[in-house]
């Protein structure tokens, strides 16, 4: 199959590659760029394990052809921490609040939460639950994920994190 040339920015780095036109973006990121953060959990765009940030939107990279991402600015979980290795506040929050167990949904979940907090600085619990409803987790029951996102939101806003009363 004839290959197409694509160029894009991934985690701040410019990449130029040749790909089959039918290659899904998730396979491009994982197989060709050797990223291990975005995962594959389903075939139907339901699970969200492959979520990345593409031109300022949360996108399930299993539902996008690589060629559609030509020219895009992409950020994955690998681009979250600072250059000196300091974790992003969301990464810290997920650990602090026990917002992960097996870790398989975590990169997609954090990447989605990152965009959610860009869209809304101080979301309510209901907004967070709706905001991450495209990302499935089989381990945590979401409660601590919600708490982690609230913790990160508070920290970004510079206000003390207060756990909601049960």
């Amino acid at each position, binding site marked *: 199959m004839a290959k197409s040339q694509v160029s894009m920015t991934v985690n701040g780095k410019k990449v130029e590659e040749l790909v*089959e036109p*039918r*290659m899904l973006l998730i*396979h491009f990121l*994982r197989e060709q760029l*050797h*990223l*291990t*953060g*975005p*995962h*594959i*959990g*389903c*075939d*139907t765009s*339901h*699970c969200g*394990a492959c979520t990345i940030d593409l031109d300022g939107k949360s996108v399930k990279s299993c539902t996008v052809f690589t060629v559609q991402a030509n020219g895009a600015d992409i950020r*994955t*979980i*690998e681009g*979250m*921490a600072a250059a000196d290795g300091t*974790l992003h506040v969301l*990464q*810290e929050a*997920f*650990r*602090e609040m*026990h917002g*992960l*167990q*097996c*870790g*398989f*949904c*975590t*990169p997609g979940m*954090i990447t989605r939460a990152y965009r959610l907090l860009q869209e809304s600085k101080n979301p309510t619990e209901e907004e*967070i*639950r*709706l905001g*991450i*409803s*495209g*990302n*499935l*987790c*089989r*381990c*945590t*029951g*979401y*409660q*601590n*994920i*919600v708490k982690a996102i609230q913790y990160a939101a508070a920290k970004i806003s510079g206000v003390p994190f207060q756990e909601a009363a*049960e």
Partner: protein
Amino acid sequence: MNEMTPTSAERAEKLQGMGCKRKRVEDIRFVQGKGNYVDDIKLPGMLYGDFTRSPHAHARVKKIDTTKAAAVPGVVAVITAETLKTVNLAWMPTLAGDVQMVLADGKVVFQNQEVAFVIAEDRYTAADAAELVEVEYEALPCNVDPLKAMAANAPVIREDVKDKKEGAHGPRKHYNHVFNWQAGDKAAADAAFAKADVTIKEMIVYPRVHPCPLETCQCVASFDKIKGELTLWGTFQAPHVIRTVGSLISKIPEHKIHVIAPDIGGGFGNKVGAYPGYICAIVASIVTGRPVKWVEDRIENLSTTAFARDFYMETEIAATKDGKVTGLRCYTVADHGAFDACANATKWPAGLFSIISGSYDIPAAHVSVDGVYTNKAPGGVAYRCSFRVTEAAYAIERAMDIMAQKLRMDPVEFRMKNLIRREQFPYTSAFGWVYDSGDYQTALNKAVETVGYKKLRAEQKKQQEAFKRGETRELMGIGVAFFTEIVGAGPSRNCDILGIAMFDSAEIRIHPTGTGICRLGTKSQGQGHETTYAQIIATELGLPADNIMVEEGNTDTAPYGLGTYGSRSIPVSGAATAMACRKIKAKAQMIAAYMLEVHDDDLEWDVDRFRVKGNPDRFKTMTELAWAAYHEVPPGMEPGLEAINYYDPPNFTFPFGAYICVLDVDVDTGSTKVRRFYALDDCGTRINPMIIEGQIHGGLTEAFGIAMGQEIHYDEDGNVTTASLMDYFLPTAVETPKWETDWTTTPSPHHPIGAKGVGESPNVGGVPCFSNAVNDAFGFLGSTNIPMPHDNWRTWTAAENLGLHK
């Protein structure tokens, strides 16, 4: 002691040992996308395998033509049963004593069964070519209803065993019969029913469901022809079992098989068994001389590897009119699919189902289980439970509610009257299980008081009256469940897998500088073992948890163990860890005595050191003793500081809990809204309360999914209609209720640290609690048992059947 010396309590806190909410060490890599899961493994020259699968549930395979597939550029080989026969691998033994086709041999017996395996340079080409394998089928009549499996004219599913009168578990009474298994005392149970004041009998169905971890089953096989060695990376909950079974099947000597389970993206029982994909990847690597990766997609996962439940339980309870249970009977038909590939301890074809007497003091009981073949996928794993414990807990907890309803007693009052009393422990059940410890009344009382149970019942009564007056279309349901699990398989007198006793192990090496490594036979799939085992060691040895590395999953380096499932890691390997620590500590004490020039008995342990009794300023810390172990051991003593323990538990452990659910049902839409869910768990000694809470949240969410919407459903033609996340319900953050957790602590008397295991309790107790809540909402209208899953359609149908829409 001067004021600069930290107190014992301060030193203990720094260790981050048992009881503290230690943050998880594995999270550092997971939050950065740096976990190492099977699909992250890439080897030079690696090929990809993909299956051609059967569209039929039951058909004769007339012809397989691989010509077109093999001709696709990039295809390296196509394997069929004929290829596998040359290495005697067309069929493989199952863990349950049956055999299973690896690739279709003569016929297919369930939809999506593996027919051919295509190996190609990349996964796209493999998928393309798998579509081009031409198979000629002759459709056969199929059966997917276990209750019809033993009918006189039922289709013969397994021609290979059709005429066998004996199976792996005794006599067979029909060509689709797998086994009959019984426990308890039938005569005593029958006698109890004969003289009972009140009896109930209900067919309680636990539908077929699937564990559906977010990462599917997958492996990479790499066979080195020169060395004759196989390395197999895979999503294995039990890597050593895979190595042994792999050796027995492939005839590759066991020491030349290296099984490695890297990070696993959830298991929940799905990743216990051995699947055709693994065998095909291994054979493909042998045939091609290159590494081969096989990654299941979600549809393949849901429709072929490891279903759970599918138990049809006719359950009966006998009681006196004042509410004392006198007898229990249960006759179960178990749908095993087309091959008996249950992941049970080998001698237990229905697992530990005889825990069905639950938390109650029932004098006489009997169960009988018939396993049958149908045209459905094989499996029968414990989806976040210990071998059929969930089915048992569901049956007894549903039946207790039905009996309470018949007696016009409150379900809490009825349970309270029948719970095993604290002074009865250790308690021997009618089935012979010896429950280690419990304080059930305290737990149930705490639950009832915390949720304000009496007030809730009063509110419900008002709501029911308003409903009858036509003032509301909502009903309120209050679900109560009190469960007891049997976990930590298991004692060698009870449990083995293919003859291997179900012990587990820990090997600890303390390095000269006082850090160390612990390797175990278990394998975390998200449970946080790297964090919790180190906490046990921190407390036992007085070394900071941060200084202990925990390693699992590599069969070359880890001591032999049976893996992680059935909540067995802490009950078995946790015990092994403590026992190995105690060996190390005993040696350290001798070194300390030598260094301090006192007798061993003159020393006492204080958090992180041995000190001279009555003279606390004379001490040696464990870190100092570690150095000394490599530097100045007493004359005649072997240097070094390490130990290994293989722990054969004296008994199972019996975690328990009291759960209460409050929900509202809209009778016109069938929708339900969980208002409140309270879970009190008693898992004995608590190692990391943060992780325990996380396990309970997750297990309750799985229970919510199962009770309210999950089902692997087949139509009459054997088409599986719920094989993707389009149709198979996984709760999102929106549907998932908020969880309230609580605990009591009743340590196990036979476990070195008193821990009982917790991971599966919320699934075991959660499912009946949700189901009882939905049933409770309708109970006052005369309904006794609305079947799971309680999705909107079924709940609406229940309302319709009760005439609520007229």
